[in-house]
């Protein structure tokens, strides 16, 4: 039996015993050696509890099953990287809570390329969406890898934007890498599995997503990045756990500032008060990465198409200009625009459709409109 299978076996034991397991395999000289030790021998290793020794002994019977699982995993294109391997991410090797091993579908982030983790609220605002798209897109254009948790909201938006901009992105999951969680992110998951991107987890394939697995997953996100960028977080947000872990690992934490009136920015503002760096522009983030200025100033994230390309049948309406000026990132209804500009509602609705067709406005939620062509 290959040594790799013993590593896999050891990796399935890490839940709750991570530190002890790393020490034990280190002392024994590998997972296979540990497997071959008897319960009494295991108990003699300093720092190993009776409970763990018994647990390891009990689980020895699984090895047949593990071999099967290992074969199946290889067939599904999932690889396993042990913490002792050369290709184990060095960024994680230096962390206090290094995972025993990682399961990878696709690839691991490049060691020499800068990485930024973009995390934030699942239920984000349009502002959060725009900021996540902006930073992820521009970082990707500058060759920075975007790490996140593929969650609903900021995480997924940032990763999709990075991929759309032609960059690389890596997701760290709190379940097996063969499970798409949340299921609605199926498209993103599929894209992350190929073209040099990757889906990573310390949990073996088939592990179901459970709430308790997400905080540990966050430490890997924090570990894999050079800069952690928080886009939107409420005062009590799971994102703050990632921030704490990033601070523990000595990573730079940057915050996208919000307004005092937005409860979705309350957590961000607290972090700024505590001394985190404000991400005031893409340049600010690039500077922290030590990569100098934003390299490409061309294509902005919300590229505005020529409003009236040749052959266009939409005739410009004088009022659209005034309505375009009044739109912001704050979603607002046609009616509130009509009230403010003192225009008939009908004209505003017509103008909004025109602006939307031109790419200058966007219906963020049925009936609510935002500006879509931010020149950031």
């Amino acid at each position: 039996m290959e040594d790799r299978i013993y590593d896999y076996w050891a990796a399935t034991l890490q839940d709750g015993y991570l530190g002890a397991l790393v020490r034990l395999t280190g002392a024994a000289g590998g997972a296979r050696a540990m497997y071959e030790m008897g319960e009494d021998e295991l108990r003699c290793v300093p720092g190993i509890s009776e409970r763990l020794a018994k647990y390891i002994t009990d689980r020895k019977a699984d090895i047949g099953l593990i071999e099967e699982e290992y074969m199946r995993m290889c067939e599904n294109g999932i690889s396993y990287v042990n913490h002792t391997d050369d290709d184990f991410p060095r960024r994680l090797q230096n962390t206090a809570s290094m995972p025993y091993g990682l399961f990878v579908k696709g690839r691991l982030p490049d060691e020499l390329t800068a990485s930024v983790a973009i995390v934030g609220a699942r239920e984000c605002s349009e502002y959060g969406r725009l900021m996540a798209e902006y930073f992820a897109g521009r970082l990707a254009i500058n060759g920075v890898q975007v790490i996140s948790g593929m969650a609903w909201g900021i995480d997924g938006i940032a990763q999709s934007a990075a991929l759309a901009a032609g960059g690389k992105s890596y997701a760290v999951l709190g379940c097996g890498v063969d499970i798409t969680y949340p299921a609605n992110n199926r498209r993103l998951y599929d894209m992350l599995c190929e073209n040099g991107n990757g889906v990573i987890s310390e949990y073996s394939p088939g592990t179901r997503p459970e709430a308790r697995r997400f905080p540990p997953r966050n430490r890997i996100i924090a570990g894999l990045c050079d800069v952690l960028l928080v886009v939107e977080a409420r005062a009590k947000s799971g994102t703050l756990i990632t921030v704490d872990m990033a601070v523990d690992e000595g990573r730079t934490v940057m915050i996208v500032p919000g307004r005092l009136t937005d409860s979705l920015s309350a957590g961000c503002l607290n972090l700024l008060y505590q001394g985190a760096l404000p991400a005031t522009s893409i340049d600010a983030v690039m500077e922290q990465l030590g990569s100098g200025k934003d390299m490409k100033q061309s294509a902005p994230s919300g590229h505005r198409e020529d409003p009236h390309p040749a052959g266009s049948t939409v005739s410009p309406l004088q009022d659209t200009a005034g309505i375009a000026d009044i739109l912001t990132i704050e979603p607002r209804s046609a009616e509130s625009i009509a009230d403010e500009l003192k225009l008939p509602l009908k004209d505003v609705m017509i103008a909004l459709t025109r602006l939307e067709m031109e790419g200058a406005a966007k219906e963020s939620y049925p009936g609510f409109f935002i500006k879509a062509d931010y020149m950031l």
Partner: protein
Amino acid sequence: MFCSVLSGGIRGIESFPVHVETDISSGMPCFEIVGYVGSEVREAKDRVRTALRNAGYMMPVARITVNLSPADIRKSGSAYDLPMALSILTCMGVIDAAAVNGIFAAGEVSLSGNVCAIKGILPMIMMAKTLGVKKCIIPAANAREGAVIEGMEVYTVSSIAEAARFLAGECKLRPVVSSLSRDLLAGHSYDNDFIQIKGQKTARRGAEIAAAGLHNFIMVGPPGAGKTLIAKCIPSIMPPLCEEECLEVSSVYSVRGALDADKPVITSRPFVSAHSSSTDISLVGGGARPIPGAVSLAHKGVLFLDELPEFSRKALEALRQPLEDRMVHITRNRDICVFPADCMLVAAMNPCPCGHYPDMNRCTCNTSQRARYMSKISGPFLDRMDICVVTEKVTPFDIQSGSDPECSKDILERVIAAHRIQKKRFEGSGILFNSQMNNKEIEKYCRLGDKQQALMKKMALRYDMSARTYYRVLKVARTISDLSGTDDITEEALLEAVRLKVSF
């Protein structure tokens, strides 16, 4: 001795003639009722016998046979009590046979000999009129409902004795005076008027277009945005009922037993608000003896479904067919009941379970909760909604803002004008409103110019429209153009119609 009195039964909202025949002959004394009768009718035996005695008439000790003809249609209800008593009295010689010839009678009797109210008087009298009957005898409690039909002498009685004396010529009764024209003139008064609605321009506009083309209409907005009030105002911007429509609507209410002395006839467009706990039967009608459901009570008016996602899926699915056919068919044993169901569906819902989305400072729901909330309404049901508007919470600023909003009367004028255009357009095609067009008719009546065609094509791509959405946008654009009085569908109408499509 034999005698027959005309009465009526109810099937759906229509009445069919029933001849109550009595024969008294010598033989073993008994009282038999035949003619495919339900248990309520069978029980009439004891009611009528006792009532006659208490009214002072002793039934002869003889063989009494009552037959309800035609004998192959099931009869139910208590309307046959009075005609039964009258035909027995005629056989007994109390009333002259000529006196009951050519009259119509219906009513329930109580043991004391009094005559009580029944359901469905209105369609019965309508049926009697078509048969050429000139005189009707009905319970006094149904007087105002019976007075609706013009050209009919309707006499009301409160007891068997009164009816017998009247027919025997011992006393005179005055026929009730028909009041339909007067009621219709006094007619459509509505409690709610659009003048009460401050702000809410989007919903007002949506309601106007919906009323103009009889489109189904859905409002999405937080609690307190006034969705229910707007829905209640919609009947006030629908054209007044014509006499024929009024009788049709009133018949539904008559069969349901929902007409009373205060409201003998429905002259204003009904507004029926169904509660979200309604069952499918209560919405579309049914029961062992089928009675009309909410969708039929809203005939020619508005059926309002508040908190749409809270309705059971089964109930909403049951509504789909009636909305499509504009009638409800209920099959029972050998009968098919048909209830009309030509109503405008107005629905309201919150954007999410807590109701505050997309206000991220207040909404406490997560994406999956929102998705689950929305998914409670089936796609095919949403496909029946032509117009969707999003309402916002009314601000104190809106409420205090100076100028009064437009009143229903002014909006109604535009709606009537649009209805007139549609009536002319669809003459002879069997439909009346833009919302009723099928795809073929849309191709025919919503032909676009080159510029409009190009715009529509562009929008279909931009908004990723399904064929169904595409046609729906065209229908709504047709109505918008009708409201503005333009023959061709304009670009502006298309651009606005896109804003009103259901987009979630």
